[in-house]
């Protein structure tokens, strides 16, 4: 094969990136192995630390290298070509990272590296157990970025430093031209949905939350290996609390982003990707409660282990679900399959087997388990089906073995449960959280079960109804437990008298408050009133607990404050979704008769034509463009004319994704008015204009067209701004157009410059006329020529949807309170 010398490429930076990926991979292996032998060996420990720091630096280096490529628009790199473009503002360049999979794995690695660097000084005697697990995770993650071919069969990972021409040369011969870069002036750009402030901060927050779940996991595994079944809790707990806080924030940020800038009309749609982040959080919260039980009462050991391990495994499983392409059409989030499905599966299997190996105390047995598992993991890319089913059955067997072995090892310290103790009800609460998580993940995993068992089931036709049906009763039970849990004491029965008194005060207050809330919100469905009561009960009970039992000492109140926030959040969810009202209910549809069953939630608004929607007269007043975005000016005037506001929902017509609409929302304390565009007229282009005719005109002439009469008043000299037009002479023709939409004036311009001349077209698509004015020389000197093009009139309109969300601020307020609670709890557990 001939070598082609390509022109204009920046190869050094890509080679540096490749090198750093390999260095990160190798240093992760080295650090992990050195750490395994570091327990009583000072030299190994220092070497292990050094290699991990080297690893962390190379991970940061990869990130910076990729950023430099994106920032400098080196489109010879596929990643920059596919995920960025020149017009992208600086602040969104960083979003390009998480549009692609490689970038999101990189983000995860960066956070893991940061966590590792924090664990080195802070994990003390746990360092030699925890760090190999961090290194193992980093090894697996960096392998995803390797992009190294093994023979012709198999590529390990997908490198973000791959050159565009290498990927594309078989498909497009242009890439064999040495000067191909001249043809690639710009990248294909970033998905407009990601060009949003929330999309800059939501993914890093969520990934930090995901990354944090590995820390309690690593402590748990170390506890298992070392048989410190209680000792691992104390160092792991603050990490778990911070993880719960960050992951929870990340999930809600995603909801807020969806609400503010997505057009599905809400903050939560039970989309597989949302579910995939919710489930690890639910398990982590359950795990935190079990860790607390274990810490204080030394019971629930097995459950604490299982949940802390499960929350991390579910993070990996969620990654597999969302990144392997297995979800297909079931998700609005589209991720392309980079061929990493196999590697992601290996990732999950490796970490499932860590705890199983840890409880297997017999070394021969460890090898007996380990060797076949490693063998099938390595064989997976080559014998997909066989290796997959072998790994599946081995892992299921391994999980059963794990439960049996752990139960056998720990059965001695079983004690009689006290049904009147706090730990009993916390345990029940944790189990209910698990129930919630199981329900969500089982339905979300339908496409996976289809693949594994060869079924043909499709997800429920109404996902929101489906999930709500199960999750609502679960939430009722959880809020009740949240309310009463703290009034019980660890290990002993509470003072019955005080307990009764507290219960009476709280229930009384909650009932009164619920009645008030149900009246003002309003909530009328009995089942919703019950839910409203249990949420209110949770809020009141936890506030009362802080006042009466903790005497307002904030540092001890983390748990109660988090519970208050949780309750407020759920009230916000209930009220905003139960009373959400689509005010664009169209009753004028002609095409399908009148059918009450059919939802007709979009309204057509003709320009300048007020329409009564709910309590507002709504008028579409025009549009304006800012770059690729078109903003539609929609005025709301209340029926009593007391207040008026204007919203600017925007829509971007991209050739790739169709109409990208971003809603605009008017926020009030008690409700939001949410508006988004669902359809706009087809944009006017050259094909719109059909009949084109030229007329020589004199002032006072009238031209009849099929769309109206055009009266030429005359022409005059005009001014135009701009450096290039300094020496230009500008004339404008003053036209009056009379049509069914009334009388309008328009003035097409003609520009005469020393070297050139041109007319500027004026389009009136709503009337169906386009004008071009020119002055041409003739025998007598000059004549005025008017070119008129006609088209079918295109009335200016928008089709939009407007929704009123009442009390949605309770949801955001609740989230903030909950995050504060988590933070306080983490601070308390650090001491």
């Amino acid at each position, binding site marked *: 094969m001939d070598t082609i010398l390509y022109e204009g490429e920046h190869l050094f930076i890509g080679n540096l990136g490749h090198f750093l990926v390999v260095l990160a991979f190798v240093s992760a292996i080295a650090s992990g192995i050195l750490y395994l032998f570091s327990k009583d060996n000072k030299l190994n420990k220092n070497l292990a630390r050094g290699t991990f720091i080297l690893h962390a630096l190379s991970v940061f280096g990869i990130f910076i290298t990729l950023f430099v490529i994106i920032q400098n628009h080196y489109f010879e790199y596929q990643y920059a070509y596919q995920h960025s473009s020149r017009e992208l503002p600086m602040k969104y360049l960083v979003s390009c990272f998480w549009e692609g999979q490689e970038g999101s794995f990189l983000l995860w690695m960066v956070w893991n590296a940061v966590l590792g660097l924090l664990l080195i000084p802070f994990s003390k005697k746990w360092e030699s157990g925890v760090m190999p697990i961090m290194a193992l995770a980093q090894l697996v993650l960096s392998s995803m970025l390797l992009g190294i071919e093994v023979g012709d069969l198999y590529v390990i990972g997908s490198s973000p430093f791959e050159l565009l021409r290498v990927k594309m040369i078989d498909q497009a011969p242009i890439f064999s031209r040495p000067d191909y870069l001249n043809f690639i002036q710009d990248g*294909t750009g970033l998905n407009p949905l990601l060009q949003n402030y929330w999309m800059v901060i939501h993914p890093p927050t969520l990934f930090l939350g995901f990354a944090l779940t590995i820390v309690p996991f690593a402590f748990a595994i170390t506890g298992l290996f070392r048989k410190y079944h209680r000792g691992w809790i104390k160092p792991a707990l603050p990490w778990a609390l911070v993880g719960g806080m960050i992951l929870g924030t990340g999930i809600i940020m995603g909801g807020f982003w969806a609400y503010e800038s997505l057009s599905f009309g809400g903050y939560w749609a039970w989309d597989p990707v949302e579910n995939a982040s919710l489930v690890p959080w639910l398990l982590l919260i359950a795990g935190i409660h079990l860790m607390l039980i274990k810490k204080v009462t030394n019971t629930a050991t097995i459950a604490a282990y299982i949940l802390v391990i499960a929350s991390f495994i579910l993070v990996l499983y969620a990654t597999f679900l969302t990144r392997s392409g297995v979800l297909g059409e079931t998700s609005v989030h589209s991720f392309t399959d980079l061929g990493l499905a196999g590697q992601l599966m290996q990732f999950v299997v490796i970490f499932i087997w860590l705890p199983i190996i840890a409880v297997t105390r017999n070394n021969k047995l460890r090898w007996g388990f380990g060797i076949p598992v490693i063998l099938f993991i390595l064989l997976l890319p080559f014998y997909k089906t066989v290796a997959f089913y072998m790994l599946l059955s081995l892992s299921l067997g391994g999980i059963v073995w794990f439960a049996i072995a752990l139960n056998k090892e720990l059965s001695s310290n079983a004690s009689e*449960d006290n049904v009147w103790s706090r730990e*009993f009800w916390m345990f029940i609460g944790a*189990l209910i959280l698990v*129930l919630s998580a199981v329900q969500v993940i089982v339905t979300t995993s339908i496409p996976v079960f289809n693949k594994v068992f060869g079924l043909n089931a*499709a997800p*429920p036709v109404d996902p929101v109804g489906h999930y709500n049906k199960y999750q609502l009763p679960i939430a009722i039970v959880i809020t009740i437990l949240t309310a009463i849990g703290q009034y019980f004491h660890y290990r002993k029965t509470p003072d019955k008298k005080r307990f009764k008194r507290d219960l009476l005060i709280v229930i009384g207050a909650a009932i009164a408050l619920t009645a008030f809330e149900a009246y003002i919100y309003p909530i009328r469905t009995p089942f919703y009133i019950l839910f409203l009561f249990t949420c209110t009960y949770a809020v009141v009970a936890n506030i009362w607990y802080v006042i009466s039992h903790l005497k307002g000492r904030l540092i001890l109140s983390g748990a109660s404050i988090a519970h208050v926030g949780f309750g407020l959040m759920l009230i916000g969810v209930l009220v905003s979704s139960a009373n959400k009202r689509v005010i664009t209910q*169209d009753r004028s549809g002609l095409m*399908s008769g009148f059918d009450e069953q059919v939802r007709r939630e979009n309204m057509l608004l003709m320009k300048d034509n007020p329409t009564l929607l709910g309590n507002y007269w709504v008028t579409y007043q025009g549009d304006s463009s800012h770059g690729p975005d078109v903003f539609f000016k929609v005025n709301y005037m209340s029926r009593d004319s007391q207040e008026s506001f204007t919203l600017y929902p925007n829509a971007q017509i991209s050739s790739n994704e*169709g109409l990208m609409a971003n809603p605009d929302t008017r926020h009030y304390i008690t409700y939001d008015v949410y508006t988004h565009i669902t359809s706009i007229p087809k944009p006017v282009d050259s094909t719109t204009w059909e009949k084109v005719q030229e007329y020589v005109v004199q002032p006072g002439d009238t031209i009849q067209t099929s769309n109206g009469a055009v009266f030429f008043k005359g022409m005059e000299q005009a001014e135009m701004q701009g450096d290039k037009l300094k020496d230009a002479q500008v004339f404008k023709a003053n036209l009056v157009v009379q049509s069914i939409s009334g009388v309008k004036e328009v003035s097409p311009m003609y520009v005469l410059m020393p070297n050139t001349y041109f007319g500027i077209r004026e389009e009136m698509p709503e009337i169906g006329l386009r004008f071009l004015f020119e002055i041409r020389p003739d025998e007598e000197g000059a004549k005025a020529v008017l070119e008129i093009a006609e088209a079918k009139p295109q009335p200016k309109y928008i089709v939009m949807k407007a929704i009123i969300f009442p009390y949605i601020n309770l949801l955001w307020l609740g989230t903030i309170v909950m995050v504060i609670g988590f933070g306080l709890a983490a601070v308390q557990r650090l001491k």
Partner: protein
Amino acid sequence: MKPKVIALIAIMAVVIAVIVASYGETSTTVTFTEAESNPDDDFYITGQLMKDMPVEYDPVKDPNYFSFYLKDKDGEVRKVVAHEPKLQDFERATEVTMMGTARDDHFEAKKVMPKCPSKYEEELEPAQADNR
């Protein structure tokens, strides 16, 4: 028996019940003929968009009426009606997955999910043309 064990068993039973019930609610991807034999149920149908038949959407007449023709995997062609605005560039879709109910003369879609050719393939075409 210990109360915790009882609770554990009870919740396990609920978990199993919920899983079984959840599976009762799953639907299947079917053909038009199958959907028409159960006109009360919702189904998923995947098919090819008929490019040479009209995709109708005139918001001035009715902003909540959008129709097109789809050929399912058995080759049956039906008119599909959705009560929502047409997705921009819907005409470019090749495959469409939708959820809805069979009616007498059409299929009533509650959710329409078009699958467009990826932007990557689109980008390639001009590049190839350029070289020829």
